[in-house]
């Protein structure tokens, strides 16, 4: 397996009226070809910014990005244009991510026209209809406008647009969270099929833990711009070490009778990482927080092979004999 994308110490800070927002603060990971990395976290944890920074939609503050071994951190416009087809994105809101004045055909053909992939009208039409077929859109919808379609079909248009340029890597930013469960399952299955057939690699951003567990190979948990825990999907759902990950997973309502477990309520609220204080960002809500947590930032280190956690007291909390 070869590494398709690698991110090293990526940072993205924004100026806001209230101070400097550390949206992404030192994130590093690798994704292997044809694998899915799930990024989970609650609102304001920087997961969306992370995705947008990687595909060069938002300028970054620091860090490095490698794609197929090549450094793409600082590339000029011309190189970015060549790289674009490989880095695509599927957006969250199937309503606002489509131009309401463009028909299904126009939307899906646009990437092909902009990047001069297909100049011939006939071939262009053929390719668009082929893409519509791949994502399960009936060809008689080609002239329809987004407002005539339901959420599931709209999201299929978004998927077709992302696939048009034969990308290798797709950032999926909450692609199913605006959809109803029965439609959500259709789209998730579609994305898995596409991954197998076209050899795609995904960065799958979501707040829904059941979805991330289902679709990901590896999972990265973020909290206020920081990496909190990283491991394989299987491992995370068996053993999780960080107190935040534990609380997050415990909070998911399970659709089973009697699943009303002992609630391990997390105190307090999520705040945004504006001018963050030193120390662990989770300290204010952490039931195990001690003085050290408020002063010193925990390192992101391996607890087991391939399982990383950022917590000073990971050993004590989990009774590990390190």
């Amino acid at each position: 397996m070869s590494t398709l994308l690698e991110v090293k110490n990526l940072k993205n800070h924004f100026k806001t009226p209230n101070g400097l927002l550390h949206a992404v603060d030192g994130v590093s990971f690798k994704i292997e070809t044809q694998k899915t990395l799930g990024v989970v976290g609650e609102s304001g944890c920087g997961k969306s910014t992370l995705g947008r920074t990687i595909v060069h939609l938002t300028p970054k503050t620091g860090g490095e990005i490698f794609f197929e071994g090549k450094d793409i951190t600082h590339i000029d416009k011309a190189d970015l244009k060549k790289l674009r087809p490989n880095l695509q994105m599927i957006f969250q809101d199937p309503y606002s991510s489509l131009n309401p004045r463009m028909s299904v055909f126009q939307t899906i053909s646009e990437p092909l026209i902009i990047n001069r992939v297909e100049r011939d009208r006939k071939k262009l039409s053929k390719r668009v209809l082929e893409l519509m077929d791949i994502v399960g859109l009936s060809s008689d919808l080609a002239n329809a406008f987004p407002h005539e379609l339901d959420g599931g079909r709209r999201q299929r248009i978004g998927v077709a647009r992302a696939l048009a340029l034969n990308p290798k890597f797709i950032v999926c930013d909450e692609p199913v969270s605006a959809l109803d469960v029965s439609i959500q399952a259709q789209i998730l299955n579609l994305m898995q099929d596409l991954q197998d057939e076209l050899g795609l690699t995904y960065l799958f951003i979501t707040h829904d833990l059941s979805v991330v567990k289902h679709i990901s190979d590896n999972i990265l948990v973020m909290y206020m711009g920081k990496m909190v825990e990283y491991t394989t999907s299987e491992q995370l759902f068996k053993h999780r070490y960080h107190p935040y990950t534990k609380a997050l997973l415990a909070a998911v309502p399970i659709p089973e009778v009697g699943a009303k477990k002992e609630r391990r309520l997390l105190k307090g609220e999520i705040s945004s990482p504006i001018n963050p204080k030193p120390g662990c960002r989770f300290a204010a809500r952490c039931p195990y927080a001690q003085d050290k947590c408020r002063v010193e930032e925990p390192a992101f280190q391996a607890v087991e092979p391939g399982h990383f956690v950022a917590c000073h007291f990971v050993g004590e909390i989990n009774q590990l004999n390190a």
Partner: protein
Amino acid sequence: MSEKTIEIRHKSSGMMRDAFKRLMRNKAAVLGLVIILILILSAIFANVVAPFSYDEQNLRQRFLAPSPEHWFGTDEYGRDIFSRILYGSRTSLMVGAISVTISSGIGTLLGAISGYYGNRVDNIIMRFIDIMLAIPNILLAISIAATLGPGIVNVMIAVGISSVPGYARLVRASVMSLRDQEFIEAARSIGANDFRIIMKHILPNCMAPIIVQATMSIAIAILSAAALSFLGLGVQPPMPEWGSMLSNGRAYIRDYWWVVTFPGVAIMATVFAFNLFGDGLRDALDPRLKQ
């Protein structure tokens, strides 16, 4: 979609057709449209319809009251007022259309650039617009017309430039609200450049308010042009223009009411028609407003 054909339509006509259907259901708007169409037709066919030429003087027939021969009476040189109003509609409509094209073109461009790029660019453009806004519209038009000198072309430029700020502000506001929509980001993610994003993704989505504003401001432009002509800065005699007809006729207002009344009614009817139509257009293009 009713038809089962897969013939690809490359124009987004569906939405416009829906809007047109809604427009046709609005009686006031249809009335406005009918008046506008009559005006346009009479402007085009003025030389066919008009019983007299606009500059045909007959000093023996000065100040004739409206009669079957001279429907709207005659003026101080014995010219037929009905014919002059017909010919005048050419000037008025042309001034309205061209000055609105100038103002909406420049205003949309400035507004789009300002709203899309934000920050410094926005600051510079908007401060310039603020300065223009600080001067009353008509005063600005008068000073431009006075600088450029009287004449129909200068009137169009003066009226056009003086109403640029309205468009710039309008377009800037809608561009700013569109700029953060996901489909703009999606367009960037497939490699679209700024020019394409503005032309293909942003402007088509703020067309509705621009069209409405343009329709409404044709009325204002006609009024401003009339005002400039009234002040002698506009169209020069003997070319008929409603504003200058009013201006010339005001000396005789006590004795010969028709000399000022008919040009006044013409201006009023035109402005009224464009406003009705503009209102209807707004409702038709933005169905959300009505519910």
